[in-house]
Each structure stands twice: as C-alpha cells, then as structure tokens.
C-alpha cells in the first residue's frame, strides 16, 4: 500500500494541526492557498407549485489540502451543497470558486463519492471497468490504468473482486468500489457524501483511516459529509455544523487534535471527548431549530 501513487504527492500545508479557519491566523495563507471558496450559496428547489429553500446562505472556504467535515441534520441540504460545489446543480444565487475559477459545470480534477453509492456504479461494467472508465477518459495508457486500478482496489480491500459486477457485491463493498474509483482518479478535490453509511463498524474504522492515509499521501482537498459526529471529529481538521433547513452554518469548529490519529488512542483522549460533546450539542440544537443570532426563521 505504501507504493500507492507516489508520483502524485502534492506538497501539503506544513502544519496540519493548525488549519486556517480565519484567513489571518495561518502561518502561510496567501489567497492562492484557498482551494475552494463557497460564497453566499443559496438553493431553492422549484417543483410543481412547491418551493423548497434547501440552502439559504452558506459561506466558507477550504484551504488547499485541508480535510473538512460537514455535519447537519437529515434534510439539512448537505447533498445539495456538495452537488452545488460539484457543478451538478444550478444555484439560485451565490457562487463556488475553485482554484480561482468560478464553477459552472463539473470541474476537472474533482471526484465525487455519491450518497447513493450503489446507483453510482455502472451495473453493466465490472468493478474493474467501473474504476477504469474515468481513467480511460483522462487518456491514460493501458499499463498505467491497470496499475492504478489494481492499486486502488487493493487499497480498499477489493483486489479479488475486480471481475465481479457491482450488483454481485454487498452494499459496503459497492461503497468501497465507488471510493476506489474516486481515489484512482487522483483528484485534487474529493467530495464524499456519507460514504460510510452502509458499512459495518470495523470496515468503517478501516475506511476512515484509509481516507486519512490517502489524504496525507495525495495532498488532496477533502470535503466529507457525514451524519456521524464522532466520525467528523475523528477525520476532520475542521467540522462545519449546519443548521436546519433553510441551511446556514451554525459553527465552524476547529479540530485541534494531533495530526496522527488512531482509532483507539485518539478517540479516548479528553480533547476528542470535548469536541465530540460540543459538536453533538450543536447538532442537537440544529435539530431543534436553533439558528445563529439575528437570523429570522
């Protein structure tokens, strides 16, 4: 596994334990180090005489190479937000800026792991072909493709299932195929929408560590949506807590845990418990309809 994608490592920010929440306080945060800028994003779904204001006003930025988790109540608009960032959804207002360019359609170098992982795999292709297809589109040579596909499948523990079709696999395995496909693509920004919802606790812990490992190794910017508060604190450098619909940010919590995380060690530290407690309270408040001061419901 250590030989995975050695050539594509990007230089990550030097100090991962101190992510930039406010642009001023980071050691080296010139504006070019902002990978993703979400500005006043608003989305109202219009359907058959019914309007749903899913997202009211979201503004935040993510530094290059940062790993940010997003938590919020069900129906808060997390998927809407990710689809907006991925350029898959026309916004009502506001904008998404990626590497200085406004997102108007799916940008290059971005991979998305969808919440409906099972439906995001092409059922007529084998697992291997599913992972390979985007690489083909990138114009990679056959030998190189093969190598990356096998490495990615190996990384998610599916080296033996390459010839199976997605529907022959369990939900958790399908989930991992979707992750392998995203990883093999070697994106600079990776969006994941509740990617571990369907896997058992043990696999989930392994996959969480895999995400951290790949993130370290590839220097990729990760936006990770989850409804699991512990997972958010364990994985992220920051946790964005969303309010109820119509959605705004309740709080941008900095996770000041050491960069090297360990399922047992990290989760049993006092700081982890504090952060978890804090985020838990925020989410509870969000569910009850609490909104930041001055905001009319």
């Amino acid at each position, binding site marked *: 596994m250590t030989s995975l994608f050695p050539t594509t490592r990007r230089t990550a920010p030097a100090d991962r334990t101190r992510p930039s929440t406010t642009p001023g306080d980071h050691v080296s945060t010139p504006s070019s180090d902002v990978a993703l800028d979400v500005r006043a994003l608003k989305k109202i779904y219009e359907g058959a005489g019914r309007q749903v204001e899913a997202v009211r006003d979201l503004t935040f930025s993510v530094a290059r190479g940062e790993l940010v988790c997003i938590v919020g109540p069900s129906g808060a608009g997390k998927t809407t937000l990710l689809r907006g960032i991925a350029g*898959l959804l026309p916004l009502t207002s506001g904008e998404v800026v990626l590497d200085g360019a406004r997102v108007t359609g*799916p940008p290059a170098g971005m991979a998305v792991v969808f919440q409906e992982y099972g439906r995001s795999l092409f059922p007529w292709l084998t697992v291997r072909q599913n992972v390979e*297809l985007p690489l083909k589109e990138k114009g990679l040579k056959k030998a190189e493709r093969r190598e990356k596909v096998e490495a990615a499948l190996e990384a998610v523990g599916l080296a033996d299932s390459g010839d199976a*079709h997605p529907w022959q696999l369990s939900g958790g395995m399908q989930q991992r195929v979707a992750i392998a496909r995203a990883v093999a693509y070697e994106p600079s920004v990776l969006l994941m929408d509740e990617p571990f919802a369907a896997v058992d606790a043990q696999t989930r812990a392994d996959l969480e560590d895999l995400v951290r490992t790949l993130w370290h190794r590839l220097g990729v910017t990760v936006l990770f949506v989850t409804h699991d508060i512990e997972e958010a604190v364990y994985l992220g450098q920051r946790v964005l807590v969303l309010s109820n619909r119509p959605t705004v940010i309740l709080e941008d919590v900095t996770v000041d845990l050491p960069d090297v995380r360990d399922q047992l060690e990290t989760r049993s530290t006092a700081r982890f418990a504090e952060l978890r407690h804090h985020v838990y309270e925020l989410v509870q408040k969000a569910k009850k309809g609490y909104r930041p001061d001055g905001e009319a419901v």
Partner: protein
Amino acid sequence: MTVRKALTQLVLALALPVVLVAVWWFASAGSTSFFWPPLSRIVEVFPETWDAERLVNDVLPSLARLAIGYSIALVAGVALGSAIGLNPTLRAFLEPTLEFFRAIPPPVLVPIIALFAGYTGWTSKIVTIALGCLWPILLNAVEGVRGLDEVLVDTSRSYRLRRRTHLFQVVLRGSSPQVAAGARQALSIGVILMVISELFGANRGLGASIVQFQRAFAVPQMWTGIILLGLIGFALSVLFRVVEHYSLAWYRGLRQADRGA
C-alpha cells in the same frame, strides 16, 4: 444447470407442441375436407413446395427485406429515441405527433406507401416493415433514456466523460434493456408486415406465395406456407432470446440481486 434439469426443461417445453401435432395428425387423418387436408398430406408436399428454387426466390428475399427494414427501424428508433429522451424540448415538440402516428395501424399504410414507392419493388415493402417496427423501438428507447438513473448521469458528468463516451457507455447501455423490450415487440410486428407487405400486387415472396396457393386452391401447399411462417417466426424469436441472453446478462443479474435484497 445439471443435465437432468436441462432434460426436464426440454421435455416440458416440447410436451405441448408434440401433443398438438399428434392431435392434428390423428384428427385430420383420413379427412376428405378440401380445406382441411390430412397433416400427413401437408408434410408430404412440404419438400416439393419449398424446394431450392422457391427458397432462393421467395423465402430469402422476404427474409432479407425483413432484416433490412428491421435494421433500419432499430438504428433509426434508437438514434431518434435517444435524441428525444435526452432533450426535453424536442420531446415536448415531437411527442404528441409521434403518439398520433403510432396510433395508426401499420398495415393501413401499405397502400399509401405503395402509391409513393411502387407496388412491386423492394422499397415499399422495406418502408412498410421499417415504419411498423419503428414505433415500439422508438418509444421504448425514449422511455429507456428518460429512465436512466440520475445518479449514474451525475457520475458520468462529474467524471467528465466525453459526449461520445457518455452516449455509448452510459445512455445506450443503460437504456438497452428497455430498447430490447421494444425490439422484441418490433420483431413480431416485422414478421407480420413482411407477409402483409406482399399481399398487394407482389408476385414473389413468402407472403405472396401463400396468397397464390390460396387463390389457386392449392390448399395443402397453402398450409405448408403457414407452417413455414410459424417456424420462421419461432426461430427468429429464439435467436432474439439468445442474443438478449448474452448481451443483457448484467441486467438479469441486477434484477435478481434487487429481488433478493
């Protein structure tokens, strides 16, 4: 599947046809009715009626016209159906009109087509077959493309698959089960139209031969034609199933997996 199971299936599948043929054979044995000759007599005249000359000059041309007309319908139906399925404006524009034309039974078009394309040539017959086969394929292709899972489409977009790849690898593959359902309907319509297109003013062809036997009161020969038609239709549908079985294996697997879940 074990050999034993395969044998049981074969016996089950053949049982009814064998019984029906036997009933026909014995019921018609010794029949003196002019329109209802003994099956033994029909079987007797079969080889001499459908000799090499007739196969080459009547049966093969009919089958060739069917193949050409059906292929045109398949290509046009899938191309047009995909375009309509992918484009809501085009759909809103065309759908009512398509529904209208679809409601017209294809056989009534035969005289009209013949007016434009002539009675005797291949063109009018091929056009008749192609037009009749087009509708089920076209409408199913539209539905198949519209029914594509939006998550798959989003996946294709977010990985920035090129238009060509998206069309061939996602749209056409994804809609293929529905297109196959339309193509199966179209095949039986095609066989019917192959015969009907020859009923007006054609002198050669499978359908034309049957009509000529009937007019000449060559009743046993007429029966052989009907039997031959049945056999051809049956063979084509078996062929279709075999192709479908292999090309849509993923779809069967997917459906089974969904049912199991």
